[in-house]
């Protein structure tokens, strides 16, 4: 399952967002330990179902392993570990969102993938000051969707591993 930028209709999750303005962006929503996260569609290369991971002994905790993506070796990041969430008991069903960082592909291991939303930049809200510092660091902002809150992830910040090492 691969997402394309142009195949998705604009959604009308909220009345005010149905009109697509120039300042709108598309986000792939993923779910992680119940929390909804958004990743800008432009940074997503691939979305994969459960993959066979090869463990890397002695690697940092947040490295889930490596996987074979059509002949390329991709390092998988355990996003729960990275964000300080409780680990899943059975991680074998984790889905992968493949992103690129410094010309290297990484797979973010998540619970499951939702839909693609087009959201207006103007509606993005700042991080609440009380947000967990680990989250505040990787969150670009919050969207108030009808049912729940969507935290927009800054993929680049995710690879700032000094803070991750502390995690």
């Amino acid at each position, binding site marked *: 399952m691969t997402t394309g930028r142009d195949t998705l209709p604009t959604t009308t999750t909220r009345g005010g967002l149905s009109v697509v303005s120039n300042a709108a962006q598309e986000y792939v929503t993923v779910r992680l330990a119940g929390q909804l996260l958004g990743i800008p569609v432009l940074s997503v290369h691939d979305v994969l179902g459960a993959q066979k991971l*090869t463990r*890397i*002994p*002695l*690697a940092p905790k947040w490295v889930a392993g*490596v996987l074979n993506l059509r*002949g390329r*070796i991709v*390092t998988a990041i355990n996003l729960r570990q990275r964000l300080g969430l409780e680990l899943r008991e059975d991680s074998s069903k984790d889905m992968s969102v493949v992103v690129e960082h410094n010309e*290297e592909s990484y797979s973010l291991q998540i619970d499951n993938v939702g839909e693609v939303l087009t959201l207006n930049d103007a509606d993005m809200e700042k991080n609440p000051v009380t947000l967990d510092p680990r989250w505040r660091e990787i969150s670009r902002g919050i969207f108030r969707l009808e049912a729940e809150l969507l935290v927009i992830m800054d993929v680049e910040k995710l690879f700032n591993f000094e803070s991750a090492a502390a995690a």
Partner: protein
Amino acid sequence: MDDLLNEFLTETAESLEVVDVELVKLEQDPENADVLDNIFRLVHTIKGTCGFLGLPRLETVAHASENVLGKFRDKELTVTREAITVVLQSLDRIKEILAELEASAQEPAGSDDDLVAKLNSIADGKAPEAAPAPAKDAKSAPQAGAPKGDEAVDPTLGRELKPGEVSLDELERAFLEAEGPEDVPAPSTALTETRPGDASQGAVSLFDRAGGADSVSVAAHLLAQRIGRYSALAEFFEDVPEDVRKAKFTGLLTALLKEDEKAAENVGKGLVTRPGFEDRNFDALSTLVKDVLEEIQLDADTRDDAVMALELVRDPIKAGSDKHAKPSATQAAPAGQARQAGGEKKGQNQSIRVSLDLLEDLMNMVSELVLTRNQLLQLVRNQEDSDFAIPIQRLSQTTSELQEGVMKTRMQPIGNAWSKLPRIVRDLSVDLDKKIDLQMKGAETELDRQVLELIKDPLTHMVRNSADHGIESPAERVAAGKSETGTIHLNAFHEGGHIIIEISDDGGGISVEKVRKKVLEKGLASEAELEDMTDGQIQKFVFHAGFSTAAQVTNVSGRGVGMDVVRTNIEKIGGTIDMTSVEGKGSTFQIKIPLTLAIVAAMIVESAGERFAIPQISVLELVRANEGSEHRIERIKDSPVLRLRNRLLPLVYLNEVLGFTTRAEIEARENPDDFVVITQVGAFTFGLVVDQVFDTEEIVVKPVAPILKDLDIYSGNTILGDGSVIMILDPNGVANHASAHLGDTGEVQAQQEEAAVLDAADQISDKESLLVFRAGSAGQKAVPLSLVARLEDIERAEVEESDGQFMVQYRGALMPVVLVEGLSKLVDDGRQPVLVFTDGDYTMGLAVDEILDIVEEDLDIKLASNHAGMVGSAIINGHATELIDVGYYLGKAFSDWLRSRDTMEDAPPAKQTRLLLIDDSAFFRNMLKPLLQVAGYRVKAVDRASQALELREAGERFDLIVSDIDMPEMDGFEFAQIVKSGGLWAHVPLIALSSYASPKHLERGRKVGFDDYIAKFDRDALLHSLSQQLKLHGDAA
């Protein structure tokens, strides 16, 4: 213009490297006109090219050096060391400027006045009346009208000439003069009769329309460059230097564009100096000119006119070519041959420049293809009778060939990494006031360019080291009885998928005393530890981090980085480095590196259910260790060790290193069944214990993600044939981790391990693997397992009897089957167990009743035997066992194998006589060892003379040495010479053992110092000689 600049940079860099080397040659051989011409030509080309690219700094420097070189050539100056040094400096400056030019595409600002002044003073100093360079050209080119010489205003360029710039007229003239004393008519714009059409073009001359002198210069340059790529033209120009070519074309184009018919005709006649230029070739030239003019962006009309104008010289060029064809009728044939030879040589020009990126991409794609191929093969293997089998087989074949081909494109001769060395050594010898001769062998040996890049620096460093620390000053050398000039040898060759590079010097060697002092000073080892070490081991401390023996830091080497950095760099690319050094004699370093880094053979192992790859280069062997097997894992306190032959190897559990299990869990296992991968990292050998070993696969090494770079335990990862990703273990990293675990450094372990080996050697290993069997009588018999080639069950019916001897067809040949003494007949029917012995061409079977066991026992032979076919008896497994003498049976099977034997009558030697046996044939070692042991000697057997010499280094003492003559690497004669030339063993009796026992050999043997010369297989003569020699030397002592 960018392309032009790039091409210029590449070419100039290549030329400069050549000039570097040639200058050093010139210095050694100042009279060599060829070398000088070559240098002059190259520098001149650089200068010329800089000129029209508008690079004034480069041009000035190049010009000034050319000036000096010109005077060398004209014998106005003599070649001196000082002058060469300055010219070399100016080349360095050119390189610096080029480097910046490459980085910024602009010539850096700055002044080279200092250097130019130096060069000029050299040029002037020795020949004060000579004017700067252009004068040289000028004096050979007197011409009315155009002012020549210093700072001339070039009429065609319309500006002042920069120093060193050659005006177009000058080039033209130079060319014309080369061809003949034709006058160059004044440039004329008059239209010629043959081109009336031109009148319609109006008053503007073709020359101006084409863009004047600048365009002509660029076009001529391109023509000169490209002409070699046209097969129809290359042969006519291949021996014309490029600058001459350029001059010719500049002249031709100028004449043509200025529509000066007469000049054009003259130039045309001289353009081709080889016979055989025909219409066809002219057409190719015409096309080339058209292409070039198009490239410099002339409009179509001008282009067509120019090409049309070219037609004018069609006949003159052909005529010029013909002129060379008929010097005399008799020479016509050789000329034709020469041309043919030229045609063959064309192949050399059939090459193109391809960008490295493209090759890298290609290589990556091929790697992917190899992986996919492996996947397909695996799939097909699992399916029987697949229709895909055959096409995939073909695909596999093609892929392999493709892989090989692409690898080849990345191969470069190692000489490319060496090209700078003569210059470096030369500079060093000047700086250090030493005389050093650099000899290079095997420069054409090819290896992957990636590897080449990576070894360049370590190599340079090592050669520097040899020159700085190795070679002594001339005075010291003379005092030591050596020639004044020290020699550094560089040798490269292929050996089994690896490339070996040897750097040896005949300098002072590494001072054991100095190293020892330094080791103590730095606390790298204790006095007691050093006591136990051999000189070789102490010398190897130079590979330790932060170790440098140079008494003072020179500007040459000793910049705080030492051999340890070299070692690290070499190990980084999966290579190994070793060293031998003899104080006062010199040192030899040997580097072994893989040919390519991209695809390597790796062993796939399993640990805690995960698979890992270990590069094959570091795997020495594989041992299985469980309760029932020959090898068991033992413990010294908490350290697991493995006894392997005469070595004691430290063990590392991969499970533990990777954090899968703890040591306690490992030790708590019941009936462990482990595989031990004997791994070598530098001088450190250890056993890596894994759960399972799969097969060996060719893997494509891919780097790990940057976020995992810190994990030194992995050198990369790869995708296996089944599509899964696995990590590639870096044995270096594993060793580091392991030593961290053990709270010990690998080095210390290595020493302990070597010490253990020495201990083992000291005891003189008596452990022998023995094959125990039953034959004839009830008592069991045994034979050293190492002598047995195979165990076979042969169908009784297949054994035939001929001439009283049993024979069987075995592996396509007839093999005699001999009954063990005491066995009266073969089995009646069914299968007959047979031990197969092989020595060289001889293969025989020994029929026995039953094979009982294989045991490892101290071979303590109790009783010498008087029975034929028996060495003696020993207690094995609590039973008296007869040891059979295989030599006896071989003699029985082949009458020519052994001579007849008499009973032993020599007095048995005194107890504990230590004997060293050197023989490259395992068979003889194993046969002679028990024989000699029975005769009462304590025997140490080695398979190479070099090993024996190592023992000597290690201080081992022997009472007798028996050496084979015909051995690889170092033969017996050479060995004897070394032994007898001095050292610990100079007075030990030396007995030669050889299959060649002609008088000539005997004579030579005695000459080099053998005390006796015995034919192989003559056991009694050997024993006799041994006791004789002992007696002789015993009396003497």
